[in-house]
């Protein structure tokens, strides 16, 4: 599952936003799953970085790479990322032809859609990335996109034409309505809605609360600093509401192996 993948492309989409294509044979990817990327062969930064799988690539462009596991369904993956710190800065300097260590796909991703449910996707900024595969699979419903300003709406490009209605909210009002994306959510919900949310923690918390009030299910995709990505370091814990009936009665869930997608009501947002 640890693969040295050749970089197919690593293109700037907008200032500080990049689209990274990796040639690696991966088993079927569920929407919401992620990979751990090693951005440097050196010892600093030491840990891998987690990134959602944006989409799978059927055909590798550029040179093809001899990877193991020939029964795999796709020849590569794409990741969208924003430069926020040391690791993503290093990543943004990589060029096609270089190789990166990839571990994944990891995590459980989004559960299959329940019969008759009415999907509402809620994305905050870069949080839209793990929702693309889901949107494509669903092929209907609504996508609510929140951003700081119009500049970030380029992230919506790939989502147009997938069959979802798209509504936008920006903090400065430069695109869509002025305000938070959770404002849009309130008007969108029915008890048949199923909400899929990814973005900043404040947004997720609000989405879970609003959904709960409307009697709708809400699935949130969480982010947490990770060391291993495979459930063994116990570093990426989030506080869950204790369930008496559960055998281990664990307070803590691991974002990497129990998630990264959780039912919103399972999370103890105050103790997160």
């Amino acid at each position, binding site marked *: *599952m*640890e693969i040295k993948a050749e970089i197919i492309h690593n293109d700037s989409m907008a200032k500080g936003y990049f689209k990274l294509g990796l040639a690696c044979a991966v088993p079927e990817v569920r929407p919401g799953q992620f990979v751990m990327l*090693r951005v440097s062969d050196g*010892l*600093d*930064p*030491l*840990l*891998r970085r987690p990134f959602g799988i944006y989409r799978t690539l059927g055909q590798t462009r550029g040179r093809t790479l001899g990877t193991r596991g020939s029964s795999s369904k796709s020849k590569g993956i794409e990741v969208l990322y924003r430069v926020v710190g040391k690791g993503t800065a290093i990543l943004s300097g990589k060029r096609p032809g270089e190789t990166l*260590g990839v*571990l994944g796909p990891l995590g459980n991703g989004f559960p299959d859609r329940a019969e008759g449910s009415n999907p509402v996707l809620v994305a905050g900024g870069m949080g839209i990335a793990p929702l693309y595969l889901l949107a494509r699979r669903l092929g209907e419903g609504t996508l609510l996109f929140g951003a700081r300003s119009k500049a970030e709406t380029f992230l919506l490009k790939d989502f147009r034409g997938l069959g979802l209605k798209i509504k936008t909210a920006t903090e400065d009002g430069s695109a869509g309505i002025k305000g938070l994306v959770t404002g849009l959510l309130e008007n969108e919900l029915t008890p048949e809605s199923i909400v899929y949310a990814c973005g900043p923690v404040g947004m997720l918390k609000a989405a879970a609360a609003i959904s709960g009030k409307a009697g709708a299910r809400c699935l949130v995709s969480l982010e*947490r*600093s*990770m*060391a*291993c990505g*495979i*459930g*063994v*370091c*116990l*570093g*990426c*814990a*989030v*506080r869950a509401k204790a369930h008496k009936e559960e055998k*281990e009665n*664990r*307070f*803590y869930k691991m974002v990497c192996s129990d998630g990264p997608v959780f039912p919103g009501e399972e999370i103890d947002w105050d*103790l*997160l």
Partner: protein
Amino acid sequence: MGPVVKKTKAATEVTIAGLKFKNPVMTASGTFGYGAEFAPYMDLGRLGGIVVKGLSLYPRQGNPGPRIAETPCGMLNAIGLQNVGVDDFIERKLPLVRNAGTHIIANIFGETVEDYMEVARRLDGAEGVSALEVNISCPNVKKGGIVFGTDPQEAFKVVSAVRKSTSLPVITKLSPNVTDIKVMVRAAEDGGTDAVSLINTITGMVIDVERRRPVLATATGGLSGPAIRPIAVRMVWQAAQAASVPVIGMGGIMSARDALEFIIAGATAVQVGTASFIEPDAAVKVAEGLEEYLSKNETTVQDLIGSLRTA
């Protein structure tokens, strides 16, 4: 009986407390789960041993998050010793690895001497446990929270109590947060330990300067990874000079070259910790690299142990 065939001892074989290890590379406690989690990434049978996550008498939930932070060439953790508890381990985790073809070593801890004794007792009869590793880097609740592993008298008490509670070999895992590691080695030996392992993590702290808060919810945590390797090698070297029992070395091992530093300094075996987070099969790669070095240099681990020349 047929004719006696003299078997050549494998170049990588080592013996600790009567246990034969096919190679001197184990995984470190808390960095390899209960073992089975890593089966998809490697043949567990290639390992000298697996030290499982620290076990307590009852399940522990661990600390609130954030529990980890990256540091220059290292990481801090404050997991809070989350574990399923010794009974659940025996019932549900141990069966998954007991036939993996490697030694399973149970790492144990407690908040009182009695805790340690009871955990040791419960593991005593457990099929498939080869040895106990006693983590003494834990706060002693009865002594007002001072850490067992920083006070030689408390260390002696806990080691001798465990020694009396089990027939398994006892490895004492030492804390590096002490002025003189040799004193701690002697305390563990006086307590009847069969081996010592070191180093556990070094207490550290990272501050988020924008929020003016520690990054970890618990303020401080344990530093591990290559950043601490020079400190670990020094302490293993000092421990090996003071010890009459075998020493197991660890702290920042990322490659076979790193493992060799510890062996040459006096370690009979090594443990690979943080590296397994970055490359799940890091420990197997270390074992393979060690084999290569041995055959290239036509030597054995046995000959390398403590072979450091300082004059």
